[in-house]
Each structure stands twice: as structure tokens, then as C-alpha cells.
């Protein structure tokens, strides 16, 4: 090919590329887009306005539903689908929809987005949903509360297990909030199954309450209902930005959680849906995440140059030392949720009572050491930490299957019932908590 011919090819290719990348007008992508989302107004409004002004004539309908309600809504309306996009944080919600065949595969055209943020893969490996922002977990605390109750500021997960935090901590349950689930699982993988659960039960014993929804935690800290909350970073940032007397900190091991977006299968406006995803992932869309009321971590590394105050996970500014094993997490997803609820959420009173007694015995022992009593206390903590199943069992596909069984066809048969297993676990932990409490009281009596 001559040089001249080559030039033509290049020019044609460039022209094509330009035509491709030039924004389509609203006529070409339709004039309506329906987004089912769990995100707050502060986030959705910003994106809605920017997208509508980019495509004049476009109307975006943001249907705000709790994640669970959103999933059910898309499931139940699938036969006559009216939604284009599902937009939420929790990856598990997307997994459920994907499993039901309710999401459409989509190949992102935008380039420049890395594979991973921290140790978490940004996109669904199967190509159904895409991460568009990341968030880290940490603690937020009410400064007035901590000052009045003379409680120190926490720095690490382990701090929350200390006696001084008894009755001052709030968190959501992993079964209620997909992001909390990832935090629980990350600690389990980071410290190991036994050590990890032991820490969660120590923190569990210090909990004032397990909230029913994830926003219940920042809400409780903001109003001073409890002092410290285990929350996702933007809850802390945005509460502070709204003027509440709160602070937020990442512990040195945190989890980075992607927030996701996907096109619903048989979307009525597929072109508009694709355009919206491209917009959200474009530098222009990613920049919107820096809005003080949104404050989520962009998935484009170059954006961080514009926000020096935001920790950059791509430069290791958020410690994420755990090599997160996605397969492991997926294999026991519902099992971990159920185990947490049985051991902590539903038996919080028993756990609190045992923890309180052990803390008191320890305090007495610190003043007046006694070897025998110390042994009883140590045994008490062991009982609190004891688990009804070991890690191998949690990963046994047959056993974990009891918790996520879905009979796809009427002829499918699965074995074991969740209610039976939960009852066994419940007996186990209740007996242990009661015995731990007795041992602690005995130890206390010996010292006194």
C-alpha cells in the first residue's frame, strides 16, 4: 500500500473513531431511561442532571428502592420489563439478578479503567455488571458522645473489642447489607476463620445494637444513640459535610467495596442504558463522584489528581493487605450471613451478658491477680468464641448449599433444611454464652 493510500486508511479510521466517540443525540438513543437504584437523591440527582443536559430531550426516571425491594421489583416485573438499569452498591444483589438471568451482558467501550481496586476486581468477570466507584469501610464516631462518655477514638478493628467500648458500638448485619457482608468476610479471610469470628464476637459483645439497614448505623451515630459505628466511608464523609459532630477513619486493614451498575435484560431503552453506563464511567462522569455530598472513590486513577484530599486506593493509600478470595466468599455467602445472625444478631442479649460478665471479671483480676480465676476467664472467652462449624465445613459445597438452595426445576432435589441447621447452631451458642457467663461470675466471686 502506498503512503498516500495508508494516509487515507488512517484518516478514515480516525473519522470513524470520531463519529463513534462523538456523543449521540437523544434522537439516536431514545428519549427515556428508567433506572432502578438504591442510591440517595444526592447522588442520583447529580448524574440525572448531567446526563440529561448532555443528551437534550432525554428524561431519566430514577426509581429509588431499597436494594432488596429493587431486586424483588426487577424479578417480579421481568415478564413485562420496564426498567433499563439496575444501579446499587451491593455486589450480592447483582449476583442474584445475574443468577436469575435478569441482567444483560455489556462490553464497556471506555478504556483506562484498571482491573482491580485494591484487591477487589472492579468488574464482574462474566461481564454482566461493572464497578463504577469504590468505597472503603471504617469507623465513624460522634465526638460529643465519646467526650461525654470518656471513650477513646478507635483506630483498628481490634480496638472495638476492648472493654471500654462495651455498649457503645453499632453495626448492620451482613444479611441486611451487602457491604457489611464484605467487611465481615474480609476480616474472616484476613485473620482466618477462627480468629476472625473470635474478633467479630468480641465486637459483637460490645454492640449496642445491630441495625436493620445499613443507613441505620450513621443515623445512630449522628443522633448520638451510640458512639461508634462500623460504616462505609461516604456515610462518614457526608455526615461530616452535613455538619454533624462526627469523624471518620479507615483502619489499617480495610475493605474496598465496588459499587455497581448493570443493564437489565430486555431493557426497553438499551441504547440509552449503554450511553448512561459509558457516561458514568467516562472521566466526566467519574469527576461527579468528587461532589462533597457523594464522595465515593472513582475507578479512574487519573481523577485522584484532582482531589488530593481523597485517599487513592490505586497508590496504596488505603491499606488493603488481605488478598481477598472472591471464590471463597461466594461459596459461603449465605452461610456466613446466617451464622452471623444466629450467633450475634438474634442472641445479642445473651452475648452481651456474657461479654459484660467477662469484662467485669477481667477488671477485677487486673486489680487482684488470681491464677485460677484467670483460667476461668480464659475458658469463658474460648466458649464465647467457639464455632459450631470449622472452615472446611463452611466451604463444603453440599453444606453451604443448604443456605442458597434454589430449585430451578420442579424435579430438582436438594437436601437439608436451613431451619434445622440454625436450630442446632442456636442451641450450641446459647449454651456456650450461658456457661461463659457462669464462669466469669465464678471468677469474679473468687477474686472478691
Amino acid at each position, binding site marked *: 500500500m502506498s503512503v498516500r493510500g495508508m494516509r487515507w486508511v488512517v484518516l478514515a479510521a480516525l473519522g470513524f473513531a470520531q463519529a463513534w466517540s462523538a456523543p449521540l443525540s437523544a434522537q439516536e438513543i431514545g428519549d427515556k431511561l428508567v433506572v432502578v437504584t438504591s442510591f*440517595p*437523591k444526592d447522588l442520583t440527582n447529580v448524574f440525572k442532571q448531567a446526563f440529561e443536559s448532555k443528551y437534550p430531550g432525554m428524561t431519566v*426516571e430514577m*426509581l*429509588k428502592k*431499597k*436494594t*432488596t*425491594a429493587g*431486586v*424483588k421489583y426487577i424479578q*417480579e*416485573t421481568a*415478564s*413485562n420489563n420496564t426498567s433499563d438499569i439496575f444501579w446499587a452498591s*451491593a455486589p*450480592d*444483589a447483582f*449476583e*442474584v439478578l445475574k443468577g436469575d438471568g435478569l441482567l444483560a451482558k455489556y462490553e464497556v467501550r471506555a478504556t483506562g479503567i484498571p482491573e482491580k481496586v485494591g484487591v477487589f476486581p472492579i468488574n464482574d468477570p462474566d461481564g454482566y455488571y461493572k464497578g463504577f466507584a469504590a468505597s472503603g469501610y471504617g469507623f465513624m464516631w460522634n465526638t*460529643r458522645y465519646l467526650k*461525654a462518655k470518656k471513650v477513646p477514638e478507635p483506630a483498628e478493628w481490634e480496638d472495638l473489642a476492648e472493654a471500654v467500648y462495651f455498649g457503645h458500638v453499632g453495626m448492620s448485619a451482613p*444479611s*441486611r447489607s*451487602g457491604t457489611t457482608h464484605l467487611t465481615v468476610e474480609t476480616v474472616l479471610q484476613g485473620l482466618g476463620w477462627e480468629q476472625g469470628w473470635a474478633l467479630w464476637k468480641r465486637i459483637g459483645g460490645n454492640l449496642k*445494637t445491630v*441495625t*436493620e439497614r445499613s443507613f441505620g448505623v450513621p*443515623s*445512630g451515630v*449522628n*443522633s*448520638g*444513640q451510640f458512639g461508634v459505628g462500623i460504616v462505609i466511608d461516604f*456515610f462518614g464523609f*457526608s455526615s461530616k459535610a*452535613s*455538619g*454533624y*459532630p*462526627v469523624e471518620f477513619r479507615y483502619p489499617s486493614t480495610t475493605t474496598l467495596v465496588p459499587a455497581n451498575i448493570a443493564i437489565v435484560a430486555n431493557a426497553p431503552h438499551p441504547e440509552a442504558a449503554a450511553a448512561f453506563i459509558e457516561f458514568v464511567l467516562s472521566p466526566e462522569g467519574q469527576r461527579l463522584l468528587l461532589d462533597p*455530598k457523594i464522595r465515593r472513590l472513582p475507578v479512574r486513577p487519573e481523577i485522584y489528581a484532582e482531589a488530593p484530599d481523597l485517599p487513592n486506593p490505586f497508590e496504596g493509600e488505603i491499606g488493603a493487605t488481605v488478598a481477598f478470595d472472591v471464590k471463597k466468599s461466594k461459596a459461603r455467602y*449465605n452461610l456466613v*450471613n446466617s451464622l452471623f*445472625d444466629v450467633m450475634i*444478631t438474634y442472641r445479642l442479649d445473651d452475648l452481651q451478658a456474657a461479654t459484660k460478665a467477662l469484662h467485669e471479671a477481667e477488671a477485677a483480676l487486673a486489680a487482684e491477680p488470681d491464677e485460677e480465676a484467670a483460667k476461668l476467664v480464659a475458658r469463658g472467652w474460648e466458649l464465647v468464641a467457639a464455632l459450631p462449624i470449622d472452615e472446611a465445613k463452611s466451604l463444603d459445597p453440599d453444606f453451604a448449599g443448604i443456605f*442458597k*438452595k*434454589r*430449585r430451578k426445576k420442579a424435579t430438582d*432435589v*436438594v437436601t*437439608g*433444611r*436451613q*431451619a*434445622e441447621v*440454625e*436450630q442446632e447452631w*442456636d442451641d450450641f451458642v446459647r449454651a456456650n454464652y450461658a456457661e461463659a457467663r457462669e464462669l466469669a461470675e465464678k471468677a469474679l466471686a473468687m477474686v472478691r
Partner: protein
Amino acid sequence: MNFSGRGQWGALGTGGFVLLVLLVFLVIPVAKVIYVAFQHPDTGAFTLVNFIDFFNTSLFRESFYNSLYVAAMSVVVASLIAIPLAYFTTRFRFGAAALIQTLGVIPLIMPPFVGAVAMQMIFGANGTINLLLDEYFGFTLPFMEGLNGVILVEAIHYFPFILINLSASLANIDRSVEESAQNLGSYGFRLFRRIVFPLAMPGYAAGAALVFLKVFDDLGTPLLLNVNNMLAPQAYLRISSIGITDPMGYVISVILVGFSLFSLWVSYFVTRGKDYASLEKGGGGLGKRELGPWGRLGAWAVVLLILLIVLSPHIGLLLLSFGTIWSFSVLPDAYTLEHYREVFSTAMPYITNTLIYAGLAALLDVVLATAIAYIVWRTGLPGRQILDYLGTAAVAVPGVVLGIGYLRVFHDFQVPLVDEPLASWWVIIVVALMIRRLPYALRACTAALQQVSVTLEEAALNLGAGRFRTVRRIVVPLMAGGIMAGFVTSFATAAVELSATIMLVAAESDAPVAYGIYVYMQTAAGRGPGAALGVLAVLLVGVATYFSHRFVERSREVAEADRRLAVAQGA
């Protein structure tokens, strides 16, 4: 009463229509969701093994006892609040009775989420009262902890059921009965205990039954206090977790419905064979007595104290809506109008939608409830009580179950002319609210009908009025107070319903206030505007209630004047 000819056919037609409505909009959608309770988790075959699991699970047994205990104790505490208010305002000449009655309805309107925050800010472990107690006396009280906290909050929240129905009943007692008792030497507390209260029993029983059923099935309050070991939250937590396919949530729903029906059956059993009807009508309720200066002072003190306690969550709501930042302090740091400005600039469509939805739903409720009450108590249709049981069972159906059921059943049905699936047409929200609030109207209307003597209708029929004419000219006017009570309770509670609504809202322009509050309450910055929207909802219902009371009082005064005129002319 004799039933023959056209009347029976009319009743049959009406009954059939009501049954059809209940089947289509309650039974089928709910059955479509909770059938998994009867499915073997392993094979999908029909089984009762899940129910055996329920009773073998100590957590569920415990939850069952807790729910029972809380429901029973809430009735007791709610009665202690409601009876004095009802008695003082109907028995004595009391300035501002309509105002007190209105304020007494307000606690029923607890806007979702923001009501919970307001409650915590006042009664919570670090709320206003406890911060003050701690500062001045060095101790705190666990108002909002554990089962007793649930009882307190439930009683404060739902006592209006008793207040409204009891007041309607008290106002229906003819003063001549009371005068006879007084002539025979019965006064004071004895008069109340032996004559007045027994005659008002249908209203009290209706209110108490509602409190019991509602509290037994209530989800909001245990969740607000994070008490999980009760049946309704156990059902909700298990149904609404993502990706969970455990059938126990639906099993618990079936048990809730079953137990509610059982308690209703028991209450039939207890009130059967008692006659609360009185022939004397139009006497305009109990003779209102003047109180002496000390009595007046005492009565006011009791009424104001009760109102202060039951309205404190709403005082908290008001403070939240005007406050800037309120965190771990007795009162907000500063005050602003900004939240209201925000709400008025964006949220007005929510208010209009709520008025339309709750108004229509409550109207349909009283129509259905009057029809059901009449068919059950005045006709001999076989199986007529099924209507009452079905209508009341709705109280035990979790909103999320109804919402999912509607999506499942009505999404494939295109509404002719509108060309939208029925499940995403706004009318479906009205239907859902109507079904969910029908039990309230039903109990109120039943109580009202029990106080109307059959002989009055027989007289009308004997004088040649048709069945329909009798109902329209005699029965409904005599039931007016109860119908109004049903309308007010249905309207007030429908105005802030969220759990079914959030499943069914298909476009933001169709959303009611509760949805708007939910949207605000997702962000830290939205607490103030959410509270402002909550205050608007409360005002809305409050104003509507006040005018209904004025309306009832006015018509009663007119009737009284007519009677005097008739007596004077006769003389």
C-alpha cells in the same frame, strides 16, 4: 329479622362482590407468595414440615411468646392512656373536645424512619429526657430498651385505636340511660363502671382488638428498637434478605395470619349472645356535666399530662424539622426554615398524591366495611363471617408480602385504555392501601352496627321502606360516628404506609409522602427535610381529622335541635 325476597338477593349480590374484591386483591396475591411455606424445601412437594420446624426452633417459640406478651401488655397500657381521654372529653363539658380528640389521633401517624429518629431523640438512651435525668439526678431510664420499650412505644403509638372507637361508642349511648341510673342513685365511678363502660363495650372491644392484632403483627416498632426476637421482625428479616430462599419467613407470615384469625374468633365467642344495642337514639351521647373548678383543674392536668407524653415523639419531630444539627444534646444546636423551603420546592406532588391515595383508600374502606358489617350482623347469608375474617386477616399480612404478590399477579395485566401494567398503575397503590387498612374500618363499623338496635330497622321495613332504603336512611346515619372513626383511622395510617408502597411505586411522580420521606432519610443531610415532610403529613391528617370531628359534632347538634323542635311542636 325475617329475610326474604329481594333483600336477600341484594345482600347476596353485595356479599358476592365484596368476596370477589377480597379474593382478587388479598387472597390470591398473598397465596401466590406464601405458598412456599407449604412446600418442602428439598423437593417442592406439599408438606407441613416447615411448620414442624417452626415449633422445633427455640428462637421462633421465644419470638411467639414475646409477641404475645407485648401485644397483651400493650392493650393494658394503651387502655390506661385512652380511657381517661375518651371519658373526660365525652362525659364532661370540656372546652376544645374536638381539639383533644384530634391531638389524640396524631400519635397514630408516625412517619417512617424519621418518626423513629424523633423517638430516639426524645426517649432514647441518649435522648432529651435521659440526658436531662443524667445531668440533674445522675441516672437514666431505659424507655427504649427491650420488650418493655416495645410495649411503651406500641402503646403510645396505637392507643388512638381505643380512643377513637371508645369515644364513638360513648357518644352513641343515650343520655336517658345515664339519667335513669343517676335517678336510681348511681354516681361517679360506679356509674362509669356499671353503666357507661359496659354500654360502650363494643367500641372498647373493637379498639382493644385492633391494638392487640396490630401490635402482634407490628413490624415498625420492634425494628425501630432493634428487637429481633419477635415474630413480625423475624418474618420480615427473613423475607427481605437478598438471595435467601429459606421458607421460614413465609411460614411465620402464615402463623401470624392464623393467630390473628384465631384471636378474632375468640373475640366473637366472647361477645356472642350479648346485646349492646339500644333503642334510644338521637339523644346525642352522654349528658355532658359541668365540672367544678377543682375537678376541671384535675381533669385538665390529667389530659395535658397524657397528651404531653403521647405527643412527645411529634414534638421531637417538630424540633428535628426546624433544627440544624441535633446530636447528643437536649435540644438542637440552632433553628432554621431551610428544611421547609427545600420540601416546599420539591416535595409538593408527594402531598397531593398522599391526599388522593389515602383519601380514596379510606373511603373505599368504610364502604366495604359497612357492607361487610351489615352482611355479617344483619343477614342470614351462609358463611357470611368469612368476609369478616378475610377483611381482618389483612392486618397480619406483611406489607412486603402484599407488594410482592401484587407485582406477581398484576404485572402481566395491561389496564385497558391506560396501556400500563396494573401493577405499575397508581391505582394499585390505592388498592394496596385499601386492603391493608380495611381491618381498622371493619372493626369500627362493626362496633357501630352492634350499637344500633335491629328493631329500628324492622320498624322502617314494616313502614314499607325497602332494604336498601333502610340501610341508607336508617342504618348508615345511626352508624355515622363509627364510620367516621373507621375513616379517620384508615386515612391516618394509610397516609404514612411505606412497606407495600415502596414495592409498587413505578414512577417518582406517582409517589406518596412516605416514599418521599424514605428518599430523604437515606442521607445524613436529608434528616431535616425528611422531618419537615413528616410534619406536613401529620398536619395533613390532623386537619382532616379535626374537620371530621367538627362535622360529626355539627350533625349531632343539628339532630339534637331537630329533636327539640319536634318535642316542642308535639307539646
